[in-house]
């Protein structure tokens, strides 16, 4: 059999059931009744003990949502979602809201341990100095044990615990769940919530504004460099339950923060909805680095089940010389609809988008970014690497625009796609629009196949086929991997290897 044919045949036998996080946990939950109505929103708001302005905000969003239509422009196909057939709130009975580590249900701690995030050990381990850490040693394979990452653990609709809060507070950094922030820091939340993604932004963002349950809140005050990596880990566990994450990150003048989110879900036959809104605000000279390792359950070999990941992420470079950088490694979800964007409002501000999107099996990815240049001398950079295997469809959709007043706006875009086998598809949909004649936009795009020559060469050195493919793919995505916080780069590389398992045999 010729090599190419062989690869294709093996791809047909594809098996994406390599998902390691597909276990589910039996845990007693407190749920809202199924479906969506004003009463359900009141229920959620009451559960979270919210002030009345928050409830009003939600209700207004809900009323607007009722008038909206689901968007259809993305290159993704799925049966119509019955929004009345979803639970909008589910919280573990034992730990219905954020608490301190000692109060968290041990069963929940076990879940996170199984996911590789030993919350309890985290703070203990942080105190233990590493002895002979030579710079040549491999980075630890569990970054959550490094003592350099604070974690907010969100389980279905609630944050169950946030680690290192005290240490961070000493530096003036607020890191807590959004629910807690609404109660404890209402002035900050009211000032910034919805200021980047208005409640009316789009169908899913509006839905999220009405029913959002939990997510993280980060506030880094003027001049502070956040002393550790912040991270939120989202776990969807409960059946038929949507997760409506809401995250808000604010970096005041001259502040710096690096934040990472991770996520997993049980393996189930039905599809589940994760509709998130993430807002970032960077004031003068501030910098926010936001990284995602998205590993939601992708569905099985026949394309059954998996998460619908419909996400609105936007950063506002509100201040002069501010900088927002998005880095994403997308390997999971049945459907991904996600365009982390930057509004370059401040003069001399800059935005970056580095993306790796791996699709296998029947996954559908429609992802990319928007760079909206409003201020003078603003610059943006887009590096997107799409890898499609199996029967998957992988679309990069990007928009770069320069406003009339955005003199000297600059953008560089590079989108590369790599195909494994010939049943999959890669598509690039760039929109560019410059209303200012001094704007300079550069766009490069390539599509290639993993060459049999390369694979043969690598295998000739004793590297088995799957490892050979993973090595070549990891070389292909190197420019983006380098953008991840060092601690997470190794994990991301491994994840890419695992996601492509079964793509060749």
């Amino acid at each position, binding site marked *: 059999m*010729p090599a190419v044919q062989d690869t294709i045949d093996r791809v047909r036998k594809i098996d994406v059931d390599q998902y390691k996080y597909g276990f589910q946990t039996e845990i007693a939950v407190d749920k809202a009744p199924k479906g969506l109505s004003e009463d359900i929103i009141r229920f959620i708001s009451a559960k979270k003990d919210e002030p009345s302005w928050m409830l009003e905000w939600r209700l207004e969003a809900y009323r607007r949502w009722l008038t909206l239509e689901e968007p259809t422009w993305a290159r993704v196909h799925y049966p119509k979602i019955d929004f009345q057939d979803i639970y909008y709130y589910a919280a573990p009975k034992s730990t219905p809201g954020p608490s301190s580590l000692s109060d968290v249900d041990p069963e929940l701690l076990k879940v996170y341990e199984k996911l590789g995030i030993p919350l309890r050990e985290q703070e203990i381990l942080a105190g233990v100095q590493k002895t002979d850490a030579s710079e040549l040693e491999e980075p630890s394979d569990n970054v959550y044990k490094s003592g350099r990452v604070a974690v907010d653990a969100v389980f279905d609709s609630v944050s169950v615990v946030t680690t290192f809060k005290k240490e961070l507070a000493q530096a003036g950094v607020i890191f807590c769940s959004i629910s807690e922030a609404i109660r404890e820091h209402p002035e900050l939340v009211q000032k910034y919530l919805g200021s980047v993604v208005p409640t009316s932004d789009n169908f899913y963002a509006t839905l999220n504004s009405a029913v959002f349950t939990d997510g993280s809140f980060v506030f880094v005050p003027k001049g502070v460099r956040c002393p550790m990596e912040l991270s939120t880990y989202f776990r969807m566990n409960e059946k038929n339950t949507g997760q409506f994450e809401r995250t808000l990150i604010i970096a005041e003048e001259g502040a710096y923060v690096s934040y990472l989110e991770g996520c997993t879900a049980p393996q189930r036959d039905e599809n589940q909805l994760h509709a998130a809104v993430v807002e970032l605000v960077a004031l003068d000279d501030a910098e926010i680095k936001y990284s995602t390792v998205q590993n939601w359950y992708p569905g099985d070999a026949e394309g059954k089940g998996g998460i619908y990941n419909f996400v609105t992420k936007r950063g506002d470079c509100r201040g002069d010389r501010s900088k927002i950088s998005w880095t994403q490694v997308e390997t999971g979800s049945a459907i991904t609809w996600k365009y982390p964007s930057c509004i370059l409002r401040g003069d001399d501000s800059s935005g970056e988008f580095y993306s790796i999107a791996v699709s296998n099996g029947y996954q559908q990815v429609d992802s990319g970014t928007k760079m909206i240049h409003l201020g003078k001398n603003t610059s943006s950079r887009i590096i997107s690497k799409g890898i499609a295997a199996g029967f998957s469809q992988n679309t990069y959709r990007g928009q770069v625009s320069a406003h009339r007043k955005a003199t000297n706006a600059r953008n560089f875009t590079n989108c590369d796609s790599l195909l494994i086998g010939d049943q999959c598809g890669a598509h690039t949909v760039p929109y560019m629009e410059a209303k200012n004649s001094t704007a300079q936009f550069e766009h490069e795009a390539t599509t290639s196949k993993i060459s049999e020559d390369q694979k043969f060469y690598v295998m000739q050195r*004793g590297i088995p086929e799957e490892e050979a493919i993973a090595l070549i793919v990891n070389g292909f*995505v*190197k420019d983006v991997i380098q953008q991840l916080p060092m601690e997470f780069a190794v994990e991301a590389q491994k994840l890419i290897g695992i996601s492509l398992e079964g793509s060749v045999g």
Partner: protein
Amino acid sequence: MLEIKNLHARIVDDGTEIIRGLNLTVKAGEVAAIMGPNGSGKSTLSYILAGREDYEVTEGDILYNGQSILEMDPAERATSGIFLAFQYPMEIPGVATMEFLKVAMNEQRKARGEEPLKIPEFLKRVKEAAASLSMDMAMLKRPLNVGFSGGEKKRAEILQMKLLEPKLCVLDETDSGLDIDALKIVSDGVNALRAPDRAFLVITHYQRLLEHIVPDSVHVLYKGQVIKSGDKSLALDLEANGYAGVIGEAA
């Protein structure tokens, strides 16, 4: 060590037969030179030895240490000790040469049930091997073969060969693209590896290489067959008189 018996092989895509009843035996410790005009099937033979799937063996067998290797995939053949220094080494963008060496060495160790190399030991080996080939360590930080000159690629092949310590080394036109100094360095590298338990198949067009790597036997390949075998004097004869005489004799 290597016995190729009445080997027939064709291109899978279009069925063209390239190797047509080839016989060749190479003993442990032997250096066998394969010569022959362009297009006679030398590279194809090297690919088939290494297990490339574009070719299909229709008849005959390849025995390596008495065992047929036809059912083994390229990685399995490599870990069993077969190494091919490519005529045209592939570029692997984004994969630092050093990283590639580490993965290859450790995969082979894993297949043999050995522990991965500790980083200091790995570095020591790479530094020594690179120094012996006059290779700059800075080059090893670059992606494998990407932007390497022809000569650098060939050196990188020999570097890999040194580090992987194979038992059967197939060198496909390693001399092409090398200047005299580089040829000397590469040949010294190969000679240093000559050992009683290691065999070499040195494919070349020119006598030039064989002045540095002196072969124990010389075989002329033409239209997919070995048409003449002899000792090193055969190479000198070919250099002086060309292939026409030998081809005429065989016809």
